[in-house]
């Protein structure tokens, strides 16, 4: 069996973005950046062999790793964290850092012993890392990956293949104002989408002229400093269901659908996800959705892309399917949940993957949370396959090491929840919130 290295940043879009592009207003937050980096350890679900290696920016918590081991998730991980600086103007991908550090600085496992590397996304430094360690890359060219991940590319395919005329590309603040005013005059609120935005960052909903004018002014100021504006405007659709399709395009162009995931989003950010139920699957089958996926896959291949795809789609309130909301040419949270459900299927159950944003008192650590879940009887174990599987310790605790005078730090509790019906899930959720409350943890979903 081939030994595989799993690694990669979860904020891939940041690395594909052109540095000279103007951007929508955002507020940089080091705690938030660290949490996204800590998410890298969710890739443990992809490891299928105890000698597979997961490399993450932050060394995995050994207590959490032991717990995962008891569940049957066995893999090797790096012995040391990779030190990063939180400076927005020189953030490098994990591959850049792995190329810079020697093998032994990161892990005692020798990279040369691995024949396959399976990245979360193809990022700068990936091909260099493969070359240095004599691992054959099996991936599309970096420029192609960047191109097909653009929302403007998604919009073009959506229009050419499926006749969707809901998107407008604007290349200046003036164009944004003209198109935006037209849409608002037709009583249409709309989204301004950054070409390479992700999960809540890079989407802004405009529903009034004041807000539009403010964004136009913000972009015009950047254009005066020489930045290039390029955004996608989309009419905001009345949505019934958000879902995604995870599929793979082989190097020979074969399209293989892996799963359909139903999402719950919060302000355009991922909130929770579950494998689609039969009702949705049957509806998609009857509506020829899979034919559309095949057509899209073939087009991507003819544009020289092969590899993982997470296709964001939706069903409007009127029942109409919008097959292409966004094409993500990388792995995804949907794929993580697919692999989790593969594991859970051995115990005849399924999970729901989600997270809570938390403000955690500075004396608390992941181990405290873990113990409390166990004492409350809502920790999933191999003998008792019910309750929560905590999916990351560093997402919970990483920011505690960077506190100055604050009494709390930001954390995220990533979980998969295993329960019976919706009533069981609601009860489990209440019990989790009781745990947060008793520990003095504030939560915001």
């Amino acid at each position, binding site marked *: 069996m081939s030994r595989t290295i799993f690694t990669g940043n979860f904020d891939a879009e940041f690395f594909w973005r052109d540095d000279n592009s103007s951007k*929508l*207003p*955002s*507020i*940089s*937050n*080091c*705690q*938030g950046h660290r949490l996204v980096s800590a998410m890298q350890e969710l890739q443990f679900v992809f490891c299928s062999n105890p000698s597979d290696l997961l490399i993450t920016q932050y060394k995995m918590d050994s207590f959490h790793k032991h717990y995962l081991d008891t569940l049957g998730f066995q893999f090797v991980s790096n012995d040391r964290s990779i030190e990063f600086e939180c400076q927005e103007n020189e953030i490098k991908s994990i591959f850049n850092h792995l190329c810079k550090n020697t093998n032994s600085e990161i892990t005692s496992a020798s990279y040369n012993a691995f024949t396959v590397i399976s990245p979360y996304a193809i990022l700068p430094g990936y091909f260099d890392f493969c070359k240095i360690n004599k691992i054959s890359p099996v991936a599309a060219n970096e420029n192609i990956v960047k191109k097909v991940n653009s929302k403007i590319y998604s919009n073009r395919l959506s229009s050419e293949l499926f006749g969707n005329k809901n998107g407008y590309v604007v290349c200046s603040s003036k164009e944004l104002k003209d198109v935006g005013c037209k849409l608002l005059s037709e009583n249409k609120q709309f989204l301004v989408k950054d070409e390479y935005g992700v999960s*809540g*960052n890079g*989407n*802004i909903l405009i529903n009034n002229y*004041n*807000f539009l004018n*403010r964004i136009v002014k*913000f972009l015009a100021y950047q254009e005066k400093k020489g930045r290039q504006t390029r955004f996608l405007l989309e009419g905001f659709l009345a949505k019934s269901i958000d879902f995604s399709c995870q599929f793979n395009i082989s190097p020979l162009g074969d399209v293989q659908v892996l799963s359909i995931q139903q999402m719950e989003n*919060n*302000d*355009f*950010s991922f909130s929770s996800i579950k494998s689609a139920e039969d009702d949705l699957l049957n509806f998609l089958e009857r509506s020829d959705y899979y034919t559309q996926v095949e057509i899209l896959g073939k087009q991507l291949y003819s544009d020289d892309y092969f590899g993982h795809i997470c296709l964001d789609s939706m069903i409007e309130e009127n029942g109409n399917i919008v097959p292409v909301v966004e094409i993500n040419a990388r792995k995804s949270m949907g794929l993580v949940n697919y692999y989790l459900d593969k594991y859970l299927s051995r115990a005849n159950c399924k999970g729901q993957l989600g997270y809570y*944003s*938390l*403000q955690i008192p500075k004396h608390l650590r992941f181990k405290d949370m873990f113990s409390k879940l166990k004492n409350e009887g809502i920790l999933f174990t191999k003998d008792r396959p019910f309750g929560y599987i905590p999916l990351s310790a560093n997402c919970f605790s990483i920011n505690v090491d960077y506190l100055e005078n*604050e*009494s*709390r*730090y*930001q954390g995220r509790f990533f979980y998969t929840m295993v329960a019976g019906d919706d009533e069981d899930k609601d009860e489990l959720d209440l019990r989790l919130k009781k745990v947060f409350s008793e520990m003095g943890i*504030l939560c*915001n979903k």
Partner: protein
Amino acid sequence: MKNMEERLIQIIGKIRPDYTDDDLKRVNGSTSIINEINLSSLQMINFMFKIEDEFNVEIDFDNLDISKMNSISGLCDFIKSCNPIA
């Protein structure tokens, strides 16, 4: 007339419709926006824009120091330092 802190807390109530009256009563000058209110990235932008409208100022997002969010009172000082809208 409400003072600046009270007006900011009212805005937080609009940004976080899930907050009850009791939740809002617990917010005071020393409450940390980052570590206690914990707005999502989109809520944070909406919050900033509502501050601009409420206090008639323009926020320089490129040079926004996130540490100003460490307390409501710190945010008030920051708003006072912003340029008024021309």
